């Protein structure tokens, strides 16, 4: 077993419903989904976020999509229009969850390394000219 950051195993999208944020975590493949379903418990996610999530964390499974959905209650300082947070709608909590580290078999970690991050040496493409 070795530790690996979730960002290499899954992608994610987050949003808001009132003062609750939802974070959908989508595994890159079936093997990663089984690992996440086993290890990414509501308790672990709650503990990862610490004081950021004032209320409970609920977890739902979407095995059909290789995804887990987490509801982070009380994570948005009152929610969209009330909140004083820069991220008042929880749009980037998606990547906050991907900071988590989980234990996976060595070969899984080796295969996943680098995945989910911009490849070394990458530069933005040239701007295309209109009409060109």
């Amino acid at each position, binding site marked *: 077993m070795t530790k690996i950051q979730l960002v290499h195993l899954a*992608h*994610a*999208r987050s*949003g*808001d*419903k*009132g*003062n*609750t944020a*939802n974070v*959908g975590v*989508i595994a*890159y493949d079936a093997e990663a989904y089984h690992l996440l379903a086993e290890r990414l418990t509501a308790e672990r996610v709650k503990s*990862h*976020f*610490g*004081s*950021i999530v004032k209320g409970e964390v609920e977890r*739902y*499974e*979407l*095995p*059909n*999509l*290789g*995804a887990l*959905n987490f*509801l982070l209650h009380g994570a948005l*300082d*009152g*929610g*969209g*229009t*009330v909140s*004083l*947070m*820069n*991220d008042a709608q929880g749009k*980037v909590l*998606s*990547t*906050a969850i991907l*900071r988590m580290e989980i234990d996976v078999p060595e070969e899984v970690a080796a295969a996943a390394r680098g995945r989910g991050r*911009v*490849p070394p040496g*990458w530069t933005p493409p040239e*701007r*295309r000219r209109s009409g060109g």
Partner: protein
Amino acid sequence: MSVGTGATRRDLVRVAGAQGFWGDDLEAPIRQVEGGPVDYLMLDYLAEVTMSVLRKLKARDPSAGYARDFVPLMERIFPICVERGIRVLANAGGVNPGGCADDVIEAGRAAGVAGKARIGLVTGDDLTDRLEDLIAAGHELAHMETGRPLADILGSVRSANVYLGAEPIVRALGLGADVVVTGRCADAALTYAPMIHEFGWSFDDIDLLASGVVAGHINECGAQSTGGNCLADWWEIPDLATVGFPIVEARPDGSFTVTKHPGSGGRVTRASVTEQIVYEIGDPRAYVTPDVVADFTSVRLTDEGPDRVGVHGVRGRPPTELYKVSVAYSAGWKAVGTLTYSWPDAAAKARAADVVLRERLDRLGLAFDDVRTELVGWNSTHGALAGEPSAETPEVQLRVGVRGTDRAAVDRFTREVSPLVLTGPPTVTGYGGGRPRVQEIMAFWPALVRKDAVDPHVEVAVRDV
């Protein structure tokens, strides 16, 4: 257009998503109607906060209160929509759908389509003026999370709108409407109403409706399903400058394909579609809409070639007897001020400045419900998960927000930020935007109301341009 009334029967209906919120890419609807064949164009303009903003605008000007961008857009695309038989559905009506429909008719005349198109109008979602009567009749409109009755804050309510289902939209299509303007309705209904109309689905065809809901959920946030804001391999997603918005190719059996126009930017993959499916959902087994409770754990995705993702197998359960109501109410005032601190020790300077600012607010005797400090460039996105900043961090932006019920206190706060430039820790800039703006806080009160208290008030009208 405007020849048929009643349901038609086709094998395929293409519903194009063209706006994901009021403020979305203005050129997207043009690309959707010009870029290839589509049958319906759906435009979702209404975020929760939008209704209260629109109500404020209408209070100042009774002809306002709807998504103004929709009218010049219709003037631009009316001729091509008429020529190609593309029907348009939009919740652009906001809190003044009648005024919106009037102006769309004017736009149609200006665009030269008089006598060639019909405008459908759906009303009855607006409960604002009925709240007292509803409460008196025993509808508590209790807050869905806290259980508090609405009567507690009735004096602060600015708007209250029901999320209507697809039935009135289908009725408008059946009456030959080529453009359907609604106020608040379930966003997804703008996508699945055409399927009900074209395929002759019944409101008892639960699994078919659930498929339509999933299609609507994928369509309603514009390019978020076609490569926009897509995290998976984002650096490989091509040509976002001309990103193709989603097109749902629906079939009578409920299965559908998510795609976009050939040659457009972005990318439709299982990853891009899945990210949108999980966006802003709660319990995936119970995605509640006015027409059906869809089960997102039944969704099956298949690769159907480049930029084509198939969706099938969707199941649902019958709807509840309740509509969701979104109530906006005034909940005080807020303001956010920012200053930028440079290397060396940028975060240390910003934190020291925050202490000075807070001490001054205390000494002035200003009371707030909350004061929040974040350092942009360090912890404003991931909070404590970001760890400690380095002394070598090139720069951080101090971002302090306050909120409270005393407007004067919030206003005084806005005058306490820029003095820090000369009276606080050194090497600070970024104050060029002037004093922070005091904003009224419009909070949301989600509630439920019995459908039978709403349905008798829902009206559908269809008029010629």
